[in-house]
């Protein structure tokens, strides 16, 4: 059976679920960091500008894999150096899921920062002023005025980043997380059919990216309702 994959179908599917989990959680982190970074970049404080600028420049200059290994292995050493100072003596193993999600979120936060910054700048300031003049608070202006309008400008870049993010999740297999690439590697090792399994994984990635593309297209139409398209 094609879907059974020599008995490894369910295992690969479990890996797919993990891949999706990593994607969604790291997307959330990336969005939060992206918003924060964009706010920092647009703020009047020079220090915050410099912080955000350093963050985006450095992250975008280093390969994801190197950062992931740095956070996974380096974080391990750091935690075990710090923990004894707080009276915690046993050895702590860093969870590869958390390391993976944090790393990917951290990396894509930098890309999201640029996307969101551009999108916020694209909303005309008059809109925000109008909101304030109605007596709305900062939060209300953000959720009612800025966010709905900036999403339209952010979506193309956001979608692109998300598709790259999904593909980057394949890297977590290198730090020992049981995502579908690693499951495929295990299955390939015992059945000696590496092409079959890696191809299956490739097809699943294609399905995920294509579905995301459809959802992003739908979102794009939703947020562009108020705009005339020629």
């Amino acid at each position: 059976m094609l879907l059974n994959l020599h008995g490894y179908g369910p295992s690969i599917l479990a890996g797919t679920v993990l891949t999706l989990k990593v994607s969604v959680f790291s997307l959330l982190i990336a969005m939060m960091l992206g918003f924060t970074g964009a706010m920092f970049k647009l703020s009047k404080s020079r220090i915050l500008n410099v912080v955000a600028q350093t963050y985006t420049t450095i992250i975008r200059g280093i390969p994801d894999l190197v950062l992931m290994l740095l956070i996974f292995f380096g974080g391990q050493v750091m935690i075990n150096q710090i923990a004894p100072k707080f009276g915690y003596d046993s050895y702590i193993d860093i969870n590869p899921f958390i390391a993976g999600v944090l790393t990917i979120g951290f990396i894509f936060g930098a890309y999201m920062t640029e996307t969101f910054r551009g999108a916020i700048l694209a909303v005309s300031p008059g809109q925000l002023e109008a909101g304030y003049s109605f007596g709305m608070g900062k939060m209300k202006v953000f959720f009612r005025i800025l966010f709905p309008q900036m999403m339209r400008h952010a979506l193309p870049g956001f979608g692109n980043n998300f598709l790259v993010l999904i593909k980057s999740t394949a890297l977590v297999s290198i730090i020992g997380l049981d995502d579908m690439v690693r499951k495929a590697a295990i299955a390939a090792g015992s059945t000696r059919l590496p092409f079959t399994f890696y191809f299956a994984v490739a097809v699943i990635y294609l399905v995920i990216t294509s579905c995301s593309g459809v959802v992003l297209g739908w979102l794009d139409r939703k947020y562009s309702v108020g705009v005339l398209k020629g």
Partner: protein
Amino acid sequence: MNFSIISDNLGIYFQGLNNTIQLVSISLVIGLVIAVPLSVIRCSKNYFFSTPVRAYIYFFRGTPLLVQMFLIYYGLGQFELLKSTFLWNYLKEAYFCALLAFALNTAAYTTEILRGGIEGTPYGEIEAAKSVGMSRIKMMIRIVLPSAFRRTLPAYSNEVIFMLHGSSLASVITIIDITGAARIVNSRYYTPYEAFLTAAVFYLVLTFIIVFLFKKLEYRWYAHLRRDHNV
């Protein structure tokens, strides 16, 4: 932090640097050579020609580079028929497989970038080329492609940086590139910070150099858009 380990092992890092630069530059050149004709075919209105190119781009842009590399390095060994041909001499080498995966991957992205450039050619330029009696091929070579190259330069510089970053995956299949060097140092001395931070610095410097070179190139290629030129 103990950076004397790094200074003792700088040799490995420079060997890694050498491998990284080789892998990236060779695959970029091959990728570009494949991408130029493919992008012209991709823009063709004949579905018989453009569909296979579309499928190729769809596959390579929709799947992770890591999986593509595994498919080539581990996957192709599944076919006994392939093993009996001379191709196997190359395909059993990790270096060649990484190069092949990178080249095919960057070719797919570059094709899509160039397609954007070709489709963005102002129609007046094409009409002008036709009106002086150029053939389709001549028009492509003299008018469409040069202006497409110019328009796609910023996007292509991003692709080059992505390729540099992607090349770190070669370390997963035993190649000693910069990341591979860092992994060796880390496993030998268990010094993750020092090992990977050094690798990060190498990549940062390479990224800055690439950005700088493309700025230079943009300055030249966009000379007609400069406001301060003294003519």
